[in-house]
């Protein structure tokens, strides 16, 4: 168990380093931050001075070396725009993002899982078809299209809700729905197929054959098994609590981490972009570790090495 987690932790660390390295290289190859931040018509001396000030005149490998050295001292760098610590800038935005992503996650779970279970239990019925139709729709329509549609209907046409901004909780409704619907659709499809798979297993027939009432077969025998694959996708959703709102925050001008990322990339504000990517990678990787742990709890076959009973039958 400990060794299992040791190797998982190592893999997690390697993943994070790879993400950060990749981002570091791509950002430095794709445009000159000094030129972008100073503006196209800035005098060349000013641009050079900016480069020297931020160490951009050094070779990339040396910058990379400095960057990692600083990370291990807890320094994630400063924003080239306003000189503040990147981590502070990012942390300021996290509550706004979570204010969207956490309610959206609850919608995904609360809508997607029951819908998937119901569809599976009434396979090929009207309910099943209706759920699957909605799921396919919710899953094919990109979130920016859905967001714009919702704005068009509820903000522009009906005037019930604001189309963007962050002034009140009412501003959060459309972005939350936009995110929740897509995720619920994915989860409904996934839960349905996990349930169908389990319901076709011989042990479900065994449970019925020993007289377990159908409700108890579903709750006691099918759901605990169907939960095992479903945990993966839920873990993925939890992992994207921070990064999952980029598109929606942009559509609804919601000042969260996602918007900060878009602005920082456009400005080549290197430290901020890297800080966000590091954070995103860390959340993803943590969520994955938690999923692995949950697997162990849900599935006894993974908990310990099978110690096969010795002797004959």
């Amino acid at each position: 168990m400990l060794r299992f987690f040791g190797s998982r932790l190592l893999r997690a660390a390697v993943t994070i380093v790879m993400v950060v390295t990749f981002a570091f290289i791509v950002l430095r190859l794709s445009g000159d931050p000094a030129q972008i931040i100073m503006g196209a018509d800035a005098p060349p001396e000013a641009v050079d001075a900016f480069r020297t000030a931020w160490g951009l005149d050094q070779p990339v490998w040396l910058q990379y070396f400095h960057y990692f050295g600083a990370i291990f001292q807890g320094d994630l760098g400063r924003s080239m725009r306003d000189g503040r610590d990147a981590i502070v800038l990012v942390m300021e935005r996290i509550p706004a993002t979570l204010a969207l992503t956490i309610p959206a996650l609850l919608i995904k779970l609360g809508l997607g899982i029951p819908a998937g279970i119901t569809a599976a239990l009434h396979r090929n019925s009207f309910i099943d078809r209706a759920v699957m139709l909605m799921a396919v729709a919710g899953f094919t329509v990109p979130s920016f299209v859905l967001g714009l549609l919702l704005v068009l209907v509820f903000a522009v046409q009906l005037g019930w809700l604001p189309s963007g901004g962050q002034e009140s909780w009412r501003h959060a409704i459309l972005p939350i729905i936009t995110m929740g619907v897509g995720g619920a659709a994915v989860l409904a499809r996934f839960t349905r197929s996990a349930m169908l798979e389990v319901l076709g297993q011989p042990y479900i027939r065994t449970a019925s054959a020993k007289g377990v009432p159908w409700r108890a077969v579903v709750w006691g025998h099918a759901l605990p098994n169907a939960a095992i694959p479903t945990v993966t996708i839920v873990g993925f959703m939890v992992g994207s609590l921070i990064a999952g709102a980029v598109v929606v925050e942009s559509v609804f001008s919601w000042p969260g981490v996602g918007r900060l990322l878009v602005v920082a990339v456009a400005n080549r504000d290197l430290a901020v972009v890297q800080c966000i990517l590091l954070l995103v990678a860390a959340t993803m990787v943590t969520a994955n570790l938690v999923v692995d742990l949950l697997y162990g709890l849900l599935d006894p076959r993974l908990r310990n090495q099978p110690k096969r009973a010795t002797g004959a039958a």
Partner: protein
Amino acid sequence: MSAALVTLKGLRVSFDGQAALRGIDLSVAPGESVGLVGESGCGKSVTWLAALGLLPGRAQISGSVKLDDVELLQARPHVLDRVRGGRIAMIFQDPASSLNPVHRIGKQITEALRLHRAMGGAAARAEAKRLLDQVGIPDAARRLDAWPHELSGGQNQRVMIAIALAGRPELLVADEPTTALDVTIQAQILRLLQDLRRDTGMALVLISHDLGVVADSCERVCVMYAGRIVEQAPSARLFSAPAHPYTRGLLGALPPLDGPRRRLAAIPGGVPEPWAMPPGCAFAPRCAMHVSACDAAAPEQVGVAPGHRAACIRATLPASHHQAAYA
């Protein structure tokens, strides 16, 4: 025969319009052991799954299944739940996947005890241990806390049998309980089923495609072909005087007891597909005794001797005649 415990009459099942059972008449007396044999796909499993209402919803079922005088086919769910496991228990071919992987062995047994004998807590646990002892699982107390994946196939089948016994059923339907197991363990499980039947007095239906196995362990054998029972007789009688050409073919295909195992391929041709059933006897196209009258209508079972019936219009011909055809 004494009053039947379970009676199937004209049981028909079809899936998506294709017949799997084409009228099964079969009864099982209390305490009796009946073997059900036939080639793969002839409907052995479907017969008992249908009787217990365990087929998927798209299966179309008609006919009658009576337990004492209670009709099971239209029974309400709570009635069926009392019968399943409580009066008729069923175990299956693949013990490893027939147990729920996320529940401990003990829990899967005590669940049946709670449902059928209103037992709980320590009493249920003690009884579960006793059942594991009874089915021959060593170190039963510790095995209660084991997971199915920690046991071998043979042990899992013993656990399945323990679960089946938990409700003190009057009939145990064992659907190819040894097919997935090693040969040595097969014999142990069959022996166990015999012993349990003797000790508990329950009836046993043993499904198999091995005529030898069934004849050894059952008093009476029913031979199925393409969704029907074509012959039923006491085991000894079936071997000494088979009346249906299909049974004769099966017996002719049995490997000699001491010789090497041969493939069961002595009968030429194959089972007709469900969508291409001949109008008369389903075996007619493969039958060496075939005459034109065989194609007129599916033959009814006729008495050949006391307790011996065969669905063949030529069943009453002298045996020597048939043997020549398969020599």
